[in-house]
C-alpha cells in the first residue's frame, strides 16, 4: 500500500452526481445557444472539479477515516467551486434564466452582503459543530443534500463580491472588509479545531476500517487522530484564508482597471485658476 495507490483507488462515480453535472453543462450550453465561450469553459471547469472532488478518494476518506480529508473537501465545495462557477456565469445567462425561473429573484435578497456573510460563515461554523458533524457522518443519505447545500451557500456567499451583475457587487474596499472578516471567522474556527484536544470529532477516533487502510494511514503516514485534527483545522485556516486573500486581491485589481471618474472637474484645462480650485 502506497500513498499513490491510495489516491489511485477508491474513486467512486455516483450516477446521480454525473447526471447533475451533465445537466448543468448542457443547460448552460442551451441557454448560451450552444456557443463555446470563455465563460462556458470556466463554468465547465467548475462543474468538472465538482464531479472529480466528490468522486475522489477525498470523499471516502473524509466520510470514513480522516477529518482532514473531509475538511479539504468542504473548502473545495464551499469556497473554490462556487467561485469558479460564479465567474463562469455571464450576465446574459442570468437574464435568460430569470425569464422562466422568476424564483431566482430570491438570490437578490440572499445576495445582500449581511445575509450572504451570515449564511456563508454560519454554514462553515454550524457544519463543524462536533455533534452535527458526527451525526452527518452516520447518515449517508445526507451526503447529497450536504454537497448541494455547500454549493448553493457558496454561490450566495460569493455573490456580493463576484455577482455576474456588476451593479450588485460591493465596491472593492467594503468587499475587502467583507472577505477579511470572513477570513477572521474562518481563522477563529481553525484555531479552535487545531488547538482543541484530539477527538473533537468522535467518529474519526477509531473508525470502522471497512477498506483496511487504517493501519496504513495511522502507522505509515503517521496520521494520528490529533495530527488529523490539526491538519483539518489548519487547512480551514491557512489555505481557507489564502482563498479569501486572493479573492480580495482580484477585486482590488479589477478596481484599478476601471477608469478614474473625475469628480466634476473639466478635464480639458489643467490650469491652476481660481475658479476650479476649491477655496476652503
Amino acid at each position: 500500500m502506497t500513498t499513490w495507490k491510495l489516491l489511485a483507488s477508491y474513486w467512486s462515480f455516483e450516477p446521480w452526481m454525473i447526471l447533475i453535472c451533465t445537466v448543468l453543462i448542457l443547460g448552460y450550453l442551451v441557454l448560451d445557444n450552444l456557443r463555446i465561450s470563455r465563460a462556458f469553459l470556466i463554468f465547465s471547469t467548475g462543474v468538472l472539479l465538482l464531479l472529480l472532488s466528490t468522486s475522489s478518494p477525498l470523499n471516502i476518506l473524509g466520510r470514513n477515516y480522516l477529518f482532514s480529508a473531509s475538511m479539504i473537501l468542504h473548502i473545495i465545495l464551499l469556497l473554490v467551486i462556487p467561485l469558479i462557477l460564479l465567474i463562469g456565469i455571464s450576465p446574459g445567462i442570468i437574464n435568460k434564466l430569470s425569464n422562466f425561473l422568476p424564483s431566482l429573484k430570491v438570490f437578490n435578497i440572499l445576495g445582500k452582503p449581511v445575509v450572504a456573510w451570515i449564511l456563508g460563515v454560519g454554514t462553515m461554523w454550524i457544519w463543524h459543530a462536533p455533534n452535527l458533524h458526527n451525526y452527518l457522518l452516520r447518515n449517508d443519505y445526507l451526503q447529497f443534500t450536504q454537497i448541494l447545500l455547500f454549493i448553493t451557500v457558496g454561490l450566495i456567499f460569493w455573490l456580493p463580491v463576484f455577482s455576474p451583475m456588476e451593479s450588485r457587487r460591493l465596491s472593492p474596499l467594503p468587499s475587502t472588509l467583507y472577505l477579511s472578516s470572513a477570513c477572521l471567522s474562518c481563522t477563529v474556527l481553525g484555531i479552535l479545531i487545531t488547538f482543541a484536544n484530539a477527538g473533537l470529532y468522535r467518529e474519526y477516533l477509531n473508525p470502522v476500517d471497512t477498506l483496511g487502510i487504517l493501519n496504513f494511514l495511522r502507522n505509515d503516514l503517521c496520521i494520528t487522530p490529533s495530527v488529523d485534527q490539526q491538519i483539518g483545522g489548519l487547512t480551514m485556516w491557512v489555505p481557507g484564508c489564502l482563498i479569501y486573500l486572493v479573492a480580495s486581491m482580484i477585486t482590488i485589481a479589477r478596481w484599478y482597471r476601471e477608469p478614474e471618474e473625475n469628480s466634476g472637474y473639466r478635464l480639458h484645462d489643467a490650469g491652476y485658476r481660481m475658479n476650479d480650485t476649491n477655496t476652503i
Partner: protein
Amino acid sequence: MSRIPLVPENVEPLPSIGESEGLLSWVGSIDHKQIGIMYIIATLVYFLIGGLEAILMRIQLAHPNSSFISPEIFNQLFTMHGTTMIFFVVMPFLIGVGVYLVPLMIGARDMAFPRLNALSFWLFLFGGLLLYYSFFTQSGAPDVGWFAYAPLSEKPFSLNNGPTYWAIGLLASGIGSIASGLNNIVTILTLRTPGMTMRRLPLFVWMILVTSFLLIFVIPIITAAFFMLLLDRLFEANFFNPASGGSAILYQHFFWGFGHPEVYILVLPAFGIISEVIPVFSRKPIFGYEFVAASTVAIGLLSLGVWAHHMFAVGLGNVTNAYFSLASMLIAIPTGVKVLNWVATMWNGKLRFYNPMLFAVAFIIEFVIGGLTGVAVASVPIDWQATDSYFVVAHLHYALFGGSLFAIFAGVYYWFPKITGRMLSECLGRWHFWLTVIGFNFTFLIQHILGLVGMPRRVYTYPDMPYWGTMNLISTIGALILGISVLIFVWNVIVSLRNGDPAGDNPWNAWTLEWATTSPPPVFNFDRVPPVRGRRPLWDLAHPDMPDEK
C-alpha cells in the same frame, strides 16, 4: 462618503505654530501639525535613551566574562531597549509623521477628530513616562525581556513591580495607538479633497491606512493579554501560571498574535516613506502603483496569520509548524514585489542623491538582507538553530533598523523643510549617513555569524569560546560608531533649526499636496487646494501638456 474637506469640530480657532502663546499653545493644542511635531520630538528623546541603553549593553558584551554591568541592570537594559525602540520610538514616530502629513497629503484641514488626536499623543507620552518611572522605584525597571513571557513575568518569578509598570505603560500607549488608528481611518476615508480618490492616494497615505487597520485589529489582542497579565499579578488570577492550571503557551499566542502584525505596523509606513522619496528623487512616478498598493493590503492580511513562526521551538507539533512556515514564507512575495518596484522606479530615472535619497537607497539594500534572513528563519529547521540566538537579533535589527529606521531618517531629511521651513545641512547629513551605514553593518552583520556559532541572545556575559570575543568586540565598535552618527544627526537638527537655509514651499520639486502649501504650513494647511486630477497633482500643474491621467 462626504467629500467636503471641512472639519465641523473646530469652530474655535486652533492655536498655531510660532504663535507666541508659550508652552500652553502646545499642551492645549489640537492642531494635527503641532501634535505631529510633539510626537516627533518625544520619540527623538526616547530614541536617544533607547540608544544609550543599547550602547551600555554593547560595552558590557565587548569582551567575555566582563563585569562592567551587573546582571540585574543588564536585564533591565535590554528589556527597556526593546520596549522603548518598538513602542516608544518607531511606532509613535510613524504615527506622528502620519498625523502630521495625512491631512496635508489628502488636502484636509486637520484630522477628523482633533481632540481624539491629542488624546492619543498624551496617552503615548505618559505611557512611556510611566514605564520609565519604574527605573526610579526601588524595585527597578522591568527585567523580563520585551515580550515578557509568562510565567517569568508572573508574581512568583518577578516579585518586583517592573512588569506591572511595563504592562500598564504599554496598555496606555496601546489604547492611544488604537485611537490614532481609528482617527486616521476616518480621516482618510472621509476628508479627502475633491478629486483625491482612493486610487490617487499618495502611497504613504495608503500604507498609513493599512497600518491603521492593523492597529485597530491587533492591539486589542495584546490589550487583552496585558489585562490578563495584570489580573494574574495583582489579583492572583490564573491565566498564565501553569502552577495553578494556567497556560504559559496561551500568553505566547496572544503576544505574537499581536507581535507579528506589529512588525508590519512598524515597517509598512516606512515602505510608504520610501515610496514617496524614491520617485521624487528619481524624477519618475512610482513603478506599478497598483502593485505597491495591493501588495500592502496582501501583507496586511497575511501578517495576521503567521504569528506562530515565533514559536517553532515551543513544541506545537510539526503540522502546525509547517503551515505557519508556509504562511510566513508567502509574505516574502508581496514584500519582494515592493522592493523590485522601487528598484524599477529608479531605473531610467535621473537620480538626485540628496540625503533622503541616500537613506532610501541604503534602506533597500539593508532591508533586503533583513527580508532574506526573515525567510531563512521562517524555515522551521533553520529556526530551530537561529531562534533566540544572535542570528535573530541581527535579523530583527536589519528589519527594524535597516528597514524602519533608515526609512525614518529618509523621511526626516525629506519633510524637515516642510515642517520647519529650513533645510537640514547636506554636509552634516552625509557624515550622519555614512557613519550610520558603516556603524550599522559593523554592529549587526557579524551577529548573524555569532548566532550561527551558538551565542544565545539576552545573556549579560558569555564564555570565552573561539572568536566570540573578537566578533562581539567588532559589534561593539560598530555600536559606538552608530552612537556618534546619532549625535551628529541631533547636532544637525539643532544647527539647522537655528540657521538652516530657508526651504521655500517645494525644495525637492515634489508632487504631493503637502508641497503645495507654505513651509511650515498655515494653521488651516491650505488657503486653496490645487485641483487633483491624478496621483501627482503638482506634476499635473507643472506639466499641463502631459498630465498623468489623460
